[in-house]
């Protein structure tokens, strides 16, 4: 089971992701420079948070044209697991691997705080060790996390059980007050039709140690590791 963490100019959560995979998942992991194109030795690829290309043009817009992204598309098409966190989610949307877009937060602020999200489905490689309805506390740190999509896309996401996380209060109620950025339907994370690509705004890699205020993010990596272990056997 081998993980890769993609590094764009401006990525800044790459080392956090690397740390979590090597220390908590306990599996081999490489950094993959955005000019590299060979993903053949990896089982899962993480597109980390940060400000790829300085967020020029739109968040995630320019990273989409990095050579590695063609390989990520092919990797995902073949069923490879792709986890996009924060800027990684923005990149996946810009690249068309996930539907919709992430626009400026409703109240314009850059938001940096712990939020609660409710697990909407356990039927994904990233949440199969969680129960539906369980609440995870993880930090968000973004200015463009306001998820938007058209009505047809929203309906499709719900019908296909592809909304994976929604912002909620600590009791698990999905309310407007618990929505930090104005995201449509409180959406914090969605998966692809094949369910092997997940994008989410909260940072599970920053919530894997009690010292950091929460270790809830470990459940996501634990799920992915369990999925991979089952696939390897």
């Amino acid at each position, binding site marked *: 089971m081998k993980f890769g963490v993609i590094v764009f100019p401006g990525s800044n959560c790459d080392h956090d992701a690397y740390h979590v995979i090597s220390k908590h998942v306990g599996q081999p992991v490489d950094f993959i420079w955005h000019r590299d194109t060979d993903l053949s030795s990896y089982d899962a690829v993480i597109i980390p948070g940060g400000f790829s290309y300085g967020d020029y*043009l*739109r968040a995630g*817009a320019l990273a989409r*044209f990095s050579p590695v992204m063609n390989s990520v598309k092919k990797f995902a098409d073949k069923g490879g697991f792709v986890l996009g966190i924060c800027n990684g989610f923005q990149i996946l*949307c*810009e690249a068309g691997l996930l539907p*919709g*877009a992430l*626009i*400026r*937060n*409703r*109240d*314009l602020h850059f938001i940096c705080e712990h939020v609660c999200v409710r697990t909407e489905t356990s039927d994904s490689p990233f949440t199969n060790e969680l129960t539906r309805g369980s609440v995870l506390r993880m930090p968000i740190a973004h200015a463009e996390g*306001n998820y*938007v*999509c*058209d009505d047809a896309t929203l309906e499709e996401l719900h019908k296909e059980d592809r909304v994976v996380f929604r912002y909620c209060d600590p009791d698990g109620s999905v309310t407007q007050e618990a929505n930090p950025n*104005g995201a449509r339907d409180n959406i914090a994370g969605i998966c692809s039709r094949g369910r092997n690509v997940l994008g989410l705004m909260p940072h599970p890699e920053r919530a894997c140690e009690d010292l950091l205020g929460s270790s809830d993010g470990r459940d996501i990596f634990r799920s992915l590791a369990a999925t991979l272990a089952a696939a390897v056997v």
Partner: protein
Amino acid sequence: MKAKVYVSLKSGVLDPQGKAIQHSVELLGYSGISDVRQGKYFEIALDGSVDNSEARQSVDKIAREVLSNPIIEDYRVEIDG
């Protein structure tokens, strides 16, 4: 030859920056403003090796594939010269 590309948010897409600008303008005492929408403007210099219609075609493609995100934005292309 120069191409100008205007990118604007689709109607209905929230523009909190536009709202903040509108608020500031109103604080300056200007009234009668019902809405402000912020967009982007690009100037692309062309080296003259292509004719007007070819230029329009390729700039249109650039605007669609790079400069705008069709999920949230519309664009308009003008070719000068």
